[in-house]
């Protein structure tokens, strides 16, 4: 596979079609919306915290396949992680999608997130892949305003 077909890995298409944890958490401890004004994509991240551990996560919103699957995959790996671990994952993911297309991938450290390495070929799609993650980071930092990619 090459080009866009490589961008749309089967895992991405699957999460786009059957997104995980797409639910509202009524009694969420943190709730924040990420918005990309350029394309109108928006995802709200709901977090339930047990001390410093993420005990539950919910996602609501709409966007392209990259944004939606990224939100879904993010939600699927965060449950049970500590706030610090989640922040570290954000850094690792962000560094990966913004790295050069031919930079080596630390697949062991990235795990499932490595499927988004194709995004590096398409700089315009980086904001799609990171939209929900930016909302997550803001929620972890205790902010309560909408975050925008712009």
């Amino acid at each position, binding site marked *: 596979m090459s*080009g*866009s*077909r490589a*961008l*749309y890995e089967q895992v991405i*298409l699957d999460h*786009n*079609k059957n997104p995980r944890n797409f639910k509202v958490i009524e009694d969420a401890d943190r709730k924040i919306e990420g918005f990309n004004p*350029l*394309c*109108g*994509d928006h995802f709200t991240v709901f977090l339930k915290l047990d001390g410093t551990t993420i005990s539950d996560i919910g996602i609501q919103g*709409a*966007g*392209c*396949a*990259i944004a*939606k699957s990224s939100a879904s995959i993010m939600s699927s790996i965060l449950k049970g992680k500590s706030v610090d671990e989640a922040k570290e994952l954000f850094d690792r993911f962000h560094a990966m999608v913004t790295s050069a297309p031919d930079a080596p991938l630390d697949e062991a450290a990235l795990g499932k997130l490595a499927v988004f390495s194709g995004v590096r070929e*398409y700089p315009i*799609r980086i904001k*799609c892949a990171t939209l929900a993650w930016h909302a997550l980071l803001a929620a972890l930092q205790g902010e309560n305003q909408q975050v925008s990619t712009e």
Partner: protein
Amino acid sequence: MATVHTPSMEPATVRRAFDVERVRRDFPILEVRHGGRPIVYLDNAATTQKPRHVIETIQRYYTRENANIHRGVHYLSQVATDHYERAREQIARFLGATVGCEIVFTRGATEGINLIAQTYGRKFIGPGDEILISHMEHHSNIVPWQMLCEEKGSKLRVVPITDDGELDMDAFGRLLNARTKIVSIGHVSNALGTVNPVRAIIDAAHAAGAIAVVDGAQSAPHMPVNIHAMGCDFFVCSGHKMYGPTGIGVLYGKVEHLEKMPPYQGGGDMVLSVTFEKTTFNILPHKYEAGTPHIEGVIGLGATVDYLNDIGMDAIAEYEQNLTRHGTQLLEEIPGLRLIGTARDKAGILSFTLDGVHPHDIGQLLDEDGVAIRVGHHCAQPVMQRFGVPATARASLAFYNTKEELDTLAAGIRRVQKVFA
């Protein structure tokens, strides 16, 4: 010019039938291949490709004719000035305006509307006055008026559109009233393709005592335009959307308005005499062209209308209509595809959404087939809101596109559906 298209055996006065393969050879960029495939360029509402004649004219200007205009006594300056002013005449004739004084060069349609708002608008619009636009306008025909209304305490009113993307003319009639001072309407919608009944709108505006502004950014490249027959007070268009250079646009204004309006910018070339006590502004149209203009752009745009005249705007419009019908039919056959904008009178713009697939993903996968379309809100967010979609995919046509290219588009869309099935 005739030599570009007419073989020496044939008299130049005989216009031949439109031949798409022949015109395609005039556009060098259509030879570019990407990933082993020819590029199917269907993003013409964003910008159009440039014929060789335009590219060569600009190259000749820089290699043989470059000098500043309107000020030199030397040979090159005279040549550059002659070509610049001849281009103004060619463009005036092309758009059906009076040669000379009615054509002002701008950076594009956007600057044209801003110029009208900042000069005519600031002088003649006051508190309580109303400016009437439509729900299908490009942001460039919304924001300059909002800024003016904000400053003057006047009111922006919006004519609604129907589910087909046509202007609601009954509502237009109700919204137009004695307080309406400006009616500003797009000739062709960039997001929907709707061709608006500008003649009827202009007549109604005049009957109500308002002036009429027509945004011709999407009409001038695709159909014959005759401003005097249309009767509008102002008309704007962009060079790069009509196969000409970027950074150059045309503002037409009735002389009676251009005479009364204050200048847009001050500087060189727009003055007759300057002392620290008093400055006398230049005559039309130079009063509105401060500083050294986009000489290359103007001369290139002159070459563009020369080229378009040689093919004939009637022939271009007829060919594009056939192409639009073919494309519409192909897209309508695709299950799960929703066309946004189905007006009876429509230009070559095919905006659509696909069930279950975001427009950005459509555009990304079509790029893989070499098909270039635009995805997003097309600088017309109110249109997206009206149709309840965040964005659309948009294929926009030009006379160098072919039915086979539209077949490639349709096949590409079906492949996108398979990937996302």
